[in-house]
């Protein structure tokens, strides 16, 4: 017995340490790859600057404005006619790409404006739905514009021309997304 114990004490039990570096590297790479910093997505807008007290806002022709009203129940009124959220996309494209043909719609894409007006009690998601459809209308117009220039879609155009060559965005210059968020009536 004594001899056995002595022998056990003498043998050195060693874990191979040479692969430790690889294990650490693997761990490091695993966490590097799996960590996702969640990206914030949303609908970007630019608010109009604060109006000076004595400066009148520039005059806008009635026909160039596509008025969209959203009420407390999320119901939609476009140009004083009852409409639905799904129809807005096409109404925006016909309004912007009218080129003065129909007297109800805009004179040119550069002058076309979309105005969204809500009441104070309108739920936020009804407003976002409408705003989303308006933006989708613009995205569709930009997509077809990019296709006519020989690109697959608008995103590719932005990648190749705008970001690649640092050039101005000609499509957005031509069809400007002019969306105004109107203040609700006081009553």
């Amino acid at each position, binding site marked *: 017995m004594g001899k056995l114990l002595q022998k056990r004490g003498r043998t050195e039990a060693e874990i191979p340490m040479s692969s430790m570096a690889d294990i*650490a590297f693997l761990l*490091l790479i695993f966490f590097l790859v799996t960590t996702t910093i969640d990206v914030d997505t949303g*609908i970007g807008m630019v*608010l109009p600057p604060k109006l000076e007290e004595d400066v009148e806002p520039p005059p806008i022709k009635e026909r160039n404005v596509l008025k969209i009203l959203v009420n407390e129940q999320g119901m939609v009124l476009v140009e004083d006619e009852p409409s639905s959220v799904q129809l807005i996309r096409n109404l925006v494209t016909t309004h912007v790409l009218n080129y003065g043909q129909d007297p109800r719609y805009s004179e040119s894409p550069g002058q076309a404006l979309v105005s969204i007006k809500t009441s104070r*009690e*309108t739920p936020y998601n009804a407003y976002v*739905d409408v705003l989303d459809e308006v933006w*989708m209308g613009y995205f569709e117009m930009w997509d077809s514009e990019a296709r006519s220039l020989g690109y697959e879609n608008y995103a590719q155009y932005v990648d190749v021309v705008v970001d690649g060559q640092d050039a101005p965005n000609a499509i957005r210059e031509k069809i400007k997304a002019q969306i105004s968020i109107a*203040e609700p009536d006081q009553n």
Partner: protein
Amino acid sequence: MSTHFKKKAKTKQEIPMASLPDIIFMLLIFFMVTTVLREQTVQVRTVLPQAEAISKIEQKRLVSYIWIGPMKLENNRLGETAVQIDDALIEDVGTIRTVMYRKLVEQPRLIVSLRVDETSEMGKVLDVQQELREANTLRINYSTKRQLAN
């Protein structure tokens, strides 16, 4: 002289690799310990609406958040609609302009991300937007989730 050179050439010039794992572990642990994920306890409920026409915000450091939604109370109850910036609830909407103006001075290219609960009423959102116009922080972003295909 020549013998001297010969002697030098014979010696092995190797960096000991045995301590490499320790160094990497130390680095790993150092970064694990020092990384502080800035945590903000959101005191309002914000269930974001869904949208299709969305874009990503690439530069995260430009973003400042404003939360609008019903206040979270005990026992999963929800209170009145409140506005939160950073860590504090905003009692008076009129103070937003000074808070946001200070942020704009620090970061001139500030983007304000509005994380609004889908059930909130537009009145509150429009009030906040009016304050943002006063503060001249005009770049905003309505935070939305990507719409799932129907």
